[in-house]
C-alpha cells in the first residue's frame, strides 16, 4: 500500500516537490500497448465539456462505496481521450523539438499513462478492489506528470532555435490549461477515495472533522488571507536568505473573506506573484515599503443573482464569457482571449459563488515598456542568462531555494527564472473564470489584479 501513502501525501502537500521513487509506480499497475490506432480513435472523440458539478456530483464526502465507484467510472470515461488529445498535440510539434530528450520524456509519460488506462477499456469498475487499483493508477498518473512543466520548459529552452516564441506560447497555453483539468480530475478522485467511508474502514484511520469543508481537492471555505500569509512567509524567507532583507505585506479590504476554490492552485498563483513583487521591491531598494494587498469580495447582490439566473438559463458555458470581464480592461499584452483548447476547461458550477478580487501593489519600479510586451510569453524572464544556462546544462548545483518555491501544484523543481510564473498563474486563475491583469507604472511600481471565481456552492 506504499503507493497509496505516497499518493495521499501528494494530495495533502502544500509546497515542496513530492518525490517518490519511480520504481514504486510500476508495482502492481497493469499496462497495455498503446497503438497509434488507439490514440487516433480516442482523440477523434470530441472532448467532453466537463463541469465541476460533474466532479462533485457523486456526493458529499465521505462517499459510500457505490458513490465511489460512480466517481471512478466517470473519471475513467473522460481521461483516456484527454490524454490522447495531449499526445496528438505533442506529436504535432516539429520533429526536432519532440526529439529533444526532455520533450521526448514528457511525450513518453503521456503514452505511459494512457497505457495504464487502456486495460480498463470497455470495462466498468465494479468492485472495491478494482477501485483501489484504479486509484493507484490515478496516483501514478499524478506522480508521473508532477514535473511536466519544468521538464517541458527545459526542453523548449534547449530547442529554442527551432521553434518560435508564438508557437511555444500557443502550444503551452492549450497544453497547460488541459493539464490543469486532467490533473484535477485525477486528484479529485484520489481525494474522494481517501475521504470515503470504505477507505476509513480499511485503514482504521478516522478523518478528523477539519476536512469537512473539503470536497475532494476543493476547499469550500478557503481563506485567501491565510494563503497570502503563508506565501508571504515562504517567499520572505527565501528573500532573507538571498538578499538579506524581506519586504512586508499589508492586508486591506476584507481579509476574513472565504471562497470555494482549490488551495493548491491559489497557492501557486500567489507564490509566483509575490516572488515577482518581492524581488522587484528589493532590487529597487524599496524593501521598507510594504506590499499592499487588498482583498475585495464581490458582493452577492441583486445584479449577481440576476446574472446567475441568466447564466443558468443559457447554460453553464455562459459563465465563462462573463468571466473575461472580471478584469475589465486586461492589459493588451495579456491577450485574454481563451485559446482554442479552452473547450478542455472544466466549466465552473452553475451557481458559482461571486468570487474575490485580490490586488497586489508594489513599489518595485514597474515594468519597462520593452519587457511589458513579453510579459505573457513562456520562457521570458528577467533573470540573467547565466542562470538560464545553469538550468539547461545538466549540472544543476542542486535546486536553489527560489527553485523550491515553484514546486507544489506546478510540480517539480527548477521553475524559477524560467519565465513560466505569470502565464501559468494566469492559466490557473482563468481556469474557473478568473484572470490576472498586470498594470505597470514604470518608474513607480506594479499593480496586479487577481480575480477568482468561486468554484461554486454545492447543495
Amino acid at each position, binding site marked *: 500500500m506504499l503507493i497509496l501513502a505516497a499518493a495521499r501525501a501528494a494530495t495533502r502537500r502544500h509546497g515542496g516537490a513530492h518525490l517518490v521513487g519511480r520504481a514504486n509506480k510500476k508495482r502492481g499497475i497493469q499496462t497495455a500497448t498503446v497503438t497509434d490506432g488507439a490514440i487516433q480513435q480516442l482523440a477523434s472523440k470530441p472532448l467532453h465539456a466537463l463541469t465541476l458539478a460533474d466532479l462533485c456530483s457523486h456526493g458529499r464526502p465521505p462517499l459510500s462505496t457505490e458513490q465511489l465507484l460512480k466517481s471512478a467510472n466517470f473519471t475513467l470515461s473522460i481521461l483516456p481521450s484527454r490524454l490522447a488529445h495531449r499526445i496528438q498535440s505533442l506529436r504535432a510539434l516539429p520533429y526536432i523539438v519532440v526529439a529533444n530528450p526532455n520533450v521526448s520524456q514528457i511525450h513518453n509519460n503521456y503514452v505511459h499513462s494512457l497505457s495504464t488506462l487502456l486495460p480498463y477499456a470497455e470495462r466498468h469498475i465494479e468492485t472495491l478492489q478494482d477501485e483501489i487499483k484504479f486509484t493507484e493508477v490515478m496516483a501514478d498518473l499524478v506522480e508521473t506528470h508532477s514535473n511536466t512543466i519544468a521538464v517541458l520548459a527545459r526542453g523548449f529552452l534547449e530547442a529554442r532555435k527551432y521553434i518560435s516564441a508564438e508557437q511555444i506560447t500557443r502550444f503551452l497555453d492549450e497544453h497547460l490549461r488541459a493539464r490543469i483539468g486532467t490533473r484535477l480530475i485525477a486528484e479529485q478522485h484520489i481525494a474522494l477515495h481517501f475521504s470515503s467511508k470504505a477507505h476509513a474502514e480499511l485503514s482504521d484511520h478516522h478523518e478528523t472533522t477539519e476536512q469537512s469543508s473539503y470536497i475532494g481537492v476543493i476547499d469550500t471555505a478557503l481563506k485567501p488571507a491565510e494563503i497570502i500569509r503563508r506565501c508571504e512567509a515562504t517567499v520572505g524567507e527565501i528573500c532573507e536568505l538571498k538578499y538579506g532583507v524581506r519586504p512586508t505585506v499589508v492586508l486591506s*479590504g476584507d481579509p476574513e473573506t472565504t471562497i470555494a476554490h482549490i488551495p493548491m492552485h491559489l497557492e501557486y498563483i500567489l507564490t509566483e506573484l509575490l516572488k515577482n513583487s518581492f524581488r522587484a521591491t528589493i532590487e529597487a531598494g524599496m524593501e521598507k515599503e510594504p506590499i499592499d494587498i*487588498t482583498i*475585495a*469580495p*464581490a*458582493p452577492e447582490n441583486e*445584479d*449577481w443573482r*440576476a*446574472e446567475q439566473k441568466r447564466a443558468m438559463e443559457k447554460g453553464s458555458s455562459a459563465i465563462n464569457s*462573463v468571466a473575461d*470581464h*472580471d*478584469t*475589465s*480592461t486586461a*492589459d493588451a499584452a495579456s491577450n485574454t482571449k481563451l485559446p482554442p483548447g479552452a473547450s478542455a476547461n472544466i466549466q465552473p458550477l452553475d451557481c458559482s459563488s*461571486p468570487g474575490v*478580487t485580490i*490586488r497586489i501593489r508594489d513599489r518595485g519600479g*514597474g515594468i519597462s*515598456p520593452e519587457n511589458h510586451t513579453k510579459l505573457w510569453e513562456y520562457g521570458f524572464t528577467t533573470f540573467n542568462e547565466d542562470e538560464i544556462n545553469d538550468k539547461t546544462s545538466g549540472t544543476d548545483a542542486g535546486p536553489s531555494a527560489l527553485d523550491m518555491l515553484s514546486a507544489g501544484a506546478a510540480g517539480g523543481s527548477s521553475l524559477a527564472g524560467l519565465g513560466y510564473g505569470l502565464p501559468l498563474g494566469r492559466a490557473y486563475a482563468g481556469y474557473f473564470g478568473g484572470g490576472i*491583469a498586470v*498594470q505597470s*507604472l*514604470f*518608474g*513607480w511600481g506594479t*499593480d496586479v*489584479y487577481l480575480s477568482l471565481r468561486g468554484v461554486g456552492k454545492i447543495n
Partner: protein
Amino acid sequence: MRVTGWAPVASPGLLMLRGPHRKGNAVAAATSRSPQYVAPPWRPSSILDEWVQREVRPISLRQLTFFGRTLTQDRLIQGANYARLELPTRIAHRLRNMQTLPYSALKNRHIAHVYELYYTAFERFRKVPEVRTLEDNDKYCEVLVQCLQEHLSVIPSLGMGVLEIQDSVSSEECDRFMTTLLRSRISRRVIAEQHLALTETFHSAWHFPNAKKSAMAPEDDFVGEIFLKCSAKEIIETCAATATELMSKAYGPVAIPRVAIKGHLDTTFPYIPSHIEYIIGELLRNSMQGVIEQRQSSSPKPIEVLICEAAQSVIIRVSDQGGGIDRAILPYLWSFAKGPRRNMRLQNLEQVPKLAGTMQELRWADSTGPDRSHSPGSGPSSGEKSGSSLTALSSRPPDLRLGMGLPMSKIYAEYWAGSLEVHSLEGYGVDAFLQISKLGNRNEVLSTRATMDAV
C-alpha cells in the same frame, strides 16, 4: 419645401437645413412638418470622391509646437493652407463612412442631422481659395469659427443616433463608427483651434511692437492651444475642485471625498489643457459619484491620485473605494452603443444640446472660462469658444448620466498616443490608469480608410 427622393441637386446645402446656422432646429422644424423621416438626399459624389482619394497628413503634438513656436507671416499662411486642405479631406472621409452605413441608419434624424452638418461644412471648406494674404487668412478664420460653433451639438446627436439605430447596425459597428468619427472630430477641431489660436497670437504680437521680435506667445509656455508645461498636480487639483463643487450642488450637504495626490508631484508635460481636463474630470467625477452614492460613512476614504513619471510617459492612477463597477454594465464600459441603461442615456443625451447652447450664451456673457484658470495672463480667447463643447460636457450636472464619459475619455487619451484603462475591484473600488506620452512626438491616432474599409 423639402426635397425627397434621389433627384440630383445642383446646390447642396439648401435641402433640409435652411441656412447652416441653426443647430438641429431646422431639421426638427422640417421633420415636424412631415412626420416621416427621410434619409438625406443624394448629391453627386464625384467631388466627394476626389477628396476621399486624398491621403490624410497626420500631425504630432511636437510638430504643432515647433511649427507655432516661431510665427512669421509666411508660417501663418502656410498653416492656413495646411488646414484649408486637411479639413475638407478629413471630413470627406467621414462623410464616406456615413454614406456606407445602412440606409436605415441615415434615416435616423440624429445621424441625418450630423450628416447634413458635415456636408455643409465640407462644401464650405472645399471652396475656400488659396490663402495668400493676412486678409485671406482672416476670412478663413471666420469660416473656421462658424463651423466650430455649429458643430457643438454633434457629440450628443451622435450619441443619441447611435443608441437609436441598434436595430439596423450591430453594436460593434456602432462603436467603431463612433470612435472613428470622434477621433476625426478631435483632429479637425485641434487643427482649426490651433490655427485660430496662432492667428490671434500673431496679431497680438503685431499690435504690441515692443514685444519680442520673434513674435512668440507672451507666455512662452503656450503655443497656440498647446500648453507646454501642463502641471499634473495643478490639473488634478483644478479638476478636483470643479468636481467637488458640482457634487455639492447636485447632492447637497453630503460628505464628498477629498482628493489626495502623491507621487512625482513636479511632473509636467505638453498637452492641450481642455483635453486633459476633460479626461481627468471624468475620472474624478466617476470616482466621487461612486463614493457618494455608496453612502457608506460620514468620512469617506479619499480618492487617491498617483502621478508617476518615466522617461517617455506620465501615468496618472486614480483609485477610489466607491464600490467598484456594477457587473451588469462592466461588459459595456467602453461602448457607446449598448447596455442596460440605454433608455436613461437617451433621455439624458436629449438634454445636452440645450446645455451646449446655454454654455455658449454664458461664454459670450462672461469671457473668462473656468478652464483658463491656470494661465497667468489670459490665454487666447478663441480657445474658449471652441473648447466650450468639452466644457459644457464637463460641467453637466452629475445626475445627467450620459454613459459616454469613459469611451470619450479613452478616445481623447488615445488621440495623442496615450491610453486609458480601468480595473474594477467589485464591491470595493476602481483604479483608472491614464497614460500620457510625454514627448509629444507620436502622430495623432486616426482611423484610416483602410481600417474602415476592412470593416
